[in-house]
């Protein structure tokens, strides 16, 4: 674990890391739908204009163009708000990217409720569910800047369609610098025999902090960063079910169809244990800052630790 240095938003880290690679690899093309600012890709527009395409506010066109580019040997990276990419262009993603199996990387920025006060039009709380149900798609949620930088490197040699979801706001680091991102292989952040907490994306930090609260009370939890929701790391889930009798999942997503569902799908066929799925309930979220919304739905270190405490008392 690194120091609690508050740094960049992941989207910025992603863009900076990709920019360095793109200077060397002229086949990398960045596409956006009038989101160069919110996706932090101005540096491509300014310094690598031959590798940058803005299609205007046209998310369907955006995805299909990227597929056409990939069909001609380019390595397209699409940047746009997750809320629009995952809904407005879902058919283009299904057909032109996944069904055609083109190497297109779809980067949904400002995901979850990070556009909090703007309302449900700007929240993406269904994207994991949508993307997960599409064959050939890989679904990844990095949790911090260091992991995001590592992810960019791994993605470049991962020649498959992938959806990456990141938030909007600066995040504290969970990982040290210069780690390796192993797509499809979850990371064990702490170990324990009392309960397991599996999280994905920027709430991994929340899960980790919940484990620290519990440790102070003498309760030891396994904390797993399930950065790759699909293909999911089944082995670490089963290993956790063997070691602990209770698993909590934590996600900034509707509790239907997201990480919790993905974990449950593994458990139910191999080793069912009791679960609790922490996330946004199946309703259009209240509005407020991202922090306020997550607090309202108890997606906080205290909220998660209370779930574990309640369960263990009952047990």
């Amino acid at each position, binding site marked *: 674990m690194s120091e609690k240095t508050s740094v960049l938003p992941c989207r910025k880290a992603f863009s900076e890391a990709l920019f360095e690679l793109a200077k060397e690899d002229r086949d990398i093309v960045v596409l956006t739908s009038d989101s160069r600012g919110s996706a932090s890709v101005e540096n491509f527009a300014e310094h690598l204009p031959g590798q940058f395409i803005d299609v205007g506010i046209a998310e369907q066109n955006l995805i*299909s163009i990227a597929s056409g580019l990939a069909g001609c*040997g380019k390595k397209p990276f699409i940047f746009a708000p997750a809320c629009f990419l995952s809904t407005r262009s879902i058919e*283009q993603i299904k057909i032109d990217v996944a069904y055609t199996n083109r190497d297109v990387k779809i980067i949904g920025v400002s995901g979850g409720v990070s556009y909090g006060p703007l309302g449900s039009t700007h929240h993406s709380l269904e994207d994991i569910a949508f993307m997960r149900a599409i064959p050939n798609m890989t679904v990844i949620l990095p949790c911090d800047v260091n992991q995001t930088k590592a992810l960019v490197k791994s993605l470049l040699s991962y020649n498959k369609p992938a959806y990456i979801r990141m938030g909007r706001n600066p995040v504290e680091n969970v990982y040290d610098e210069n780690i390796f991102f192993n797509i499809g292989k979850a990371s064990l952040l702490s170990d324990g025999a009392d309960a397991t907490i599996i999280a994905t994306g920027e709430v991994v930090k929340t899960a980790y902090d919940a484990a620290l609260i519990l440790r102070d009370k003498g309760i030891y939890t396994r904390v797993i960063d399930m950065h790759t929701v699909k293909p999911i790391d089944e082995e670490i889930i089963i290993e956790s079910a063997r070691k602990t009798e209770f698993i909590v999942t934590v996600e900034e997503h509707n509790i239907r169809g997201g990480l919790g569902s993905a974990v449950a799908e593994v458990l139910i066929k191999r080793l069912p244990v009791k679960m609790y799925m922490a996330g946004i309930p199946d309703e259009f979220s209240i509005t407020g800052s991202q922090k306020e919304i997550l607090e309202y739905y108890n997606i906080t270190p205290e909220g998660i630790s209370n779930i574990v405490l309640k369960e263990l008392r009952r047990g």
Partner: protein
Amino acid sequence: MEDIDISFLENKAKEIRRNIVDMIYHSGAGHIGGSLSSTDILVTLYYKILRIDPRNPVWTDRDRFILSKGHSVEGYYTILADLGFIDREELKTYCKFNSRLTGHPTVKIPGVEANTGSLGHGLSLGVGMALAGKMDKKDYKVYVLMGDGEQAEGSIWEAAMCAKHYKLDNLIGIVDRNKLQIGGPTEYVMSLEDLSAKWASFGWEVVEVDGHNISQLVTVFESVPVKYNKPTLILAHTVKGKGVSFIEDKPEWHHKIPTSEEYTRMIRELNQEDDNVREDIGSAV
């Protein structure tokens, strides 16, 4: 293919039409009306215009063709087989269990550039391919064949705007303007006119052509790009069901499967040597 003459192409179109009817009758699946309306366009492109190599379907310098109206697939498959991209025998598997020759084309088939079937995707895919050509300074062209009913898809106009913005004179859109869609005449379902003016107002150079006059089609395709820095839209006026007089211009023949009697009549008419000998009266054109 410089030496290929018009009568060869016209005979080829007849042969392809016979095969379209055959495939649809024997598989009990397919879209006969739109396949017959687009046959002459496909034949002109594949036997005269496109720079392609069936022995090397992924040749980086090849011209790209996208069948955006993916349901008009029978003629497309027949041509790909005739040119050697796939085996002729494989055509018999069309729409059969586990065949890669599905009712809409996919890139599993050599020579196919895109998985189409949901309308409104092809032009955007073509924009991507044309952009890649510009980036790599390649001189290939990208052809996208769209339906006219398909013109109601908003994504087409996103792509149209984008192609003009990026000055894609290596992109050629073709509209198979057969004036019918599944629910009836386009002007009844969702009026498209003035379609030529719509494309022109989006910054495309529009050329209108008789989509069954192969000589005209050749001339038009050979003149592309019509304007430097501008994408070209070829508005091809066609007849749905073209070549079989009793189904021409009849909305119900969008995807009707012929009975054995109808099939026999179709083949008899398509076997006529002289185009003027029509089986029945009252043909649409």
